[in-house]
Every structure is written in structure tokens, then in C-alpha cells.
């Protein structure tokens, strides 16, 4: 699974896991109906505390992204509710906050900052 969790970051591990699962579902890398790895396997692979993983699963289940089946691994819901534009944009804005702060300190205005960002995104796509 394409997940990297940094336990030493200030961002709580469960939140990183939740965000990355959301991202994977939103980008289509995990499709509805796909099974997620068992807590045990994920714990070994990522070196994460199983409680952290359980907490992330519980949150995602509450949001309606995952379904819990008795005795079987969790599965992505057939028609996930919460992962829409709003959630993706919120995630993106959060990532931009430190950049905005840097822009302010360097005295770069919003328009120039927006142009720079647009150039980077277009460059990468090419």
C-alpha cells in the first residue's frame, strides 16, 4: 500500500493515516469494494501502533468511507459519502498554510504566489 506515516512528525499518526486513505480513495488508487489490509499486517508494514490504526479505521468508518464486516478486513464503501471536492480542498488548503506564511514573510503577494503555484502544477503535469 502506498502509505507513509512519519511517527515523529507533529501530525498525529492516525490523522496522517486517515488523510492518506482519503487521498488514495479520492485519487482512485483504492476503489470502492477494495479490501484494506488487516490491522496486524498494516502495523507490521508501517511500524505503527495497532491502536492508532484502529482509531483511524473508526474515524473513517464514522465518516462513511469504510465498512466494517464481522470477522473480515475493512472494505471501502461501495458509494463513499464524504470524499468529495470539499474534503480534497480542505486537505490541500491545510498543506498550503506554511507556504502562505512563507509568502507573507518574503513579501510575495497573493497573485504572484498563485502564478508560481500554477506554473509548478502545470510543469509537473507536462
Amino acid at each position, binding site marked *: 500500500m502506498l502509505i507513509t506515516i512519519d*511517527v*515523529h*512528525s*507533529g*501530525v*498525529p*499518526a*492516525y*490523522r496522517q493515516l486517515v488523510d492518506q486513505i482519503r487521498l488514495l480513495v479520492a485519487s482512485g488508487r483504492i476503489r470502492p469494494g477494495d479490501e484494506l489490509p488487516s*490491522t*496486524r499486517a498494516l*502495523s*507490521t508494514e508501517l*511500524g*505503527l*501502533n*495497532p*491502536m*492508532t490504526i484502529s*482509531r483511524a479505521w473508526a474515524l473513517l468508518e464514522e465518516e462513511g468511507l469504510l465498512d466494517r464486516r464481522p470477522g473480515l478486513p475493512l472494505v471501502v464503501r461501495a458509494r463513499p459519502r464524504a470524499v468529495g471536492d470539499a474534503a480534497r480542498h480542505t486537505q490541500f488548503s491545510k498543506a498550503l*498554510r*506554511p507556504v502562505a*506564511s*512563507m509568502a*507573507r*514573510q518574503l513579501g510575495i503577494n497573493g497573485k504572484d504566489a498563485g502564478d508560481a503555484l500554477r506554473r509548478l502544477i502545470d510543469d509537473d503535469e507536462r
Partner: protein
Amino acid sequence: MGDPIFDATGLSKAFGHIDALREVTLSLSGPSIIGLLGRNAAGKTTLLRHIVGLQLPTAGTARTFGVPTRILGHEQLAKIGVVTQTPVFLGWMTIEQQLRYLSAFYPRWDVDREAHLLELLELDGTSQIKALSTGSVQKLAIVASLCHRPTLLLLDEPVSNLDPIVRDRFLKFLLEVVQEDAATIVISSHVLHDVESVVDWVVCLNDGRVVENAALDDLKERYTEWRVAARTRDLPAHFEEACVAHETSVNRRTATLVVRAAEADVSAFRQRYDADVEVAPLNLQGLFPALVHGRRH
């Protein structure tokens, strides 16, 4: 989660006129990996000793597995594994002999786990304990504490003498233990980096009192770091806001603060001090002074 594995109410311990523990009220339950943090002489080792009944409270109560620690018996002790800060074993025995000796006292002893751990920690079973280095004795203490599949594991600085590779293996093994045995693991360590990688719950002691008892993730969400850069005016020497939990560094033009996120108002702060504020998350290393000290520099 079931009954608490350890609970203390108003637990106090005094040695002469020194108060090692003051009115500790705590409840530990599992399965979980709990980090017991604190400065030197905060009472961490004393608390761990109380859990096994090695020391008895001068006031208050302490119960392990629901049984008062004064009368802990065979049934409870068979479920507890302990690694002490300076482990001591019978020097004239070899590692294998020592483990065989200990295995006779436990109802179940997992020989496969013993072999696996000896290999994982790179211990030679035929070496005499007298001739082992401090790190190897610590490794032996780890093996001896885990082989009987305890449901409560108390580790007092278990990895301080281990090299990074073995340390990493051991911490990963703890993750297996907490799942396989549904164990409650309490790690007391100063190496926050290691603690952070496996722990889900944090109990922080300072000067004999419990100052924090919360999930690690919650603590990371509760506190943030503000990196303040003054614009026109100089910054004050101290920030009086109630939301500031700790001033990591303050000088005239910049400051780094640990702030309680729920009470904090960034824009009001910006306006009041005419400064730029960059908000960043904090890991355990950054959180620690705020958890322990509160406001002081």
C-alpha cells in the same frame, strides 16, 4: 476495554521527608502501549515498583489486576513481565541456564518465542552472564520478561544500552506482543524518539504528580508550535496569554512558543504583537517541556 489492569487512588509515597509520589490517581488499561515520561527523579521508577508491590504506598491505594499490591500472588505475577533499569542475574549461570531456571516458575513458557527473541536480539545462549556487557544483560532481561507471555509488561529504560538496529527490532516486536497477547505495555524512557514510535498513550509525571494522562495523538492535536517573527515592534520578554503553555525561546525579534490550540486565537495574537505567526505541529520531543514544565523557559 475491560477492567483496568492497574489503578491507583491518591497514591502517595514518601521516603523520609522526600515525597516521591504525590496523590497519584491513575488507571491503566489495555491492550495498549503506554509511555511513562518525566524528568529524572519524577517518580517513574517508584511508580513502576508500586505496580508490582515492591514498594508500598504511604497513603492511598494501588491495585494490580484488581488485587491490592500488598497481596499480589502467583496468579497475578504470572501475568506480569518486568525489565528493570539495571538488571541483575545470577552471574555464574549461562543465559540458557538462567532462562531454564526461570521457566520452571511460570505456568506457560513459550520456547519458540524464546528462540526467536534470542535470535532477534543476537544473544548467544551459551555465554556466561558474568561476562556479558551491560547491553547484553539488558537484552537478557528483555527475553526473560517476555517468554511467559505476560499481559502486563513494565519496561524501565529497556533500550538505553542497545544499539539502534537491535533497538528498532525490539520496538517492532513490542507491536507484535501488544496484538498477540493483548498486552498492556508500560515503557518508561528518556529516549522520546523511541517512545514516540510505538506508544499510543502517554502518562507524564513531574515531581511525583501526574501532569498528563492522554493519548499521544490527542496531545499532538492539543498543542501546536507558534513561530513568531516580529514585524515592526520588538517582542516582549514574556507572553502572558493563557494559551501559551511553554516558551521555548524568546528574544526581541523572534519567539517559539508551545500553545494550547483550543484556546488560541492566532489573528488576535498577530494584531496584538504586530508579528507574523507560523503555526506548526509538534512531536513528542517538542511537546515534552510543555507537558512537564508548563510555563517556564
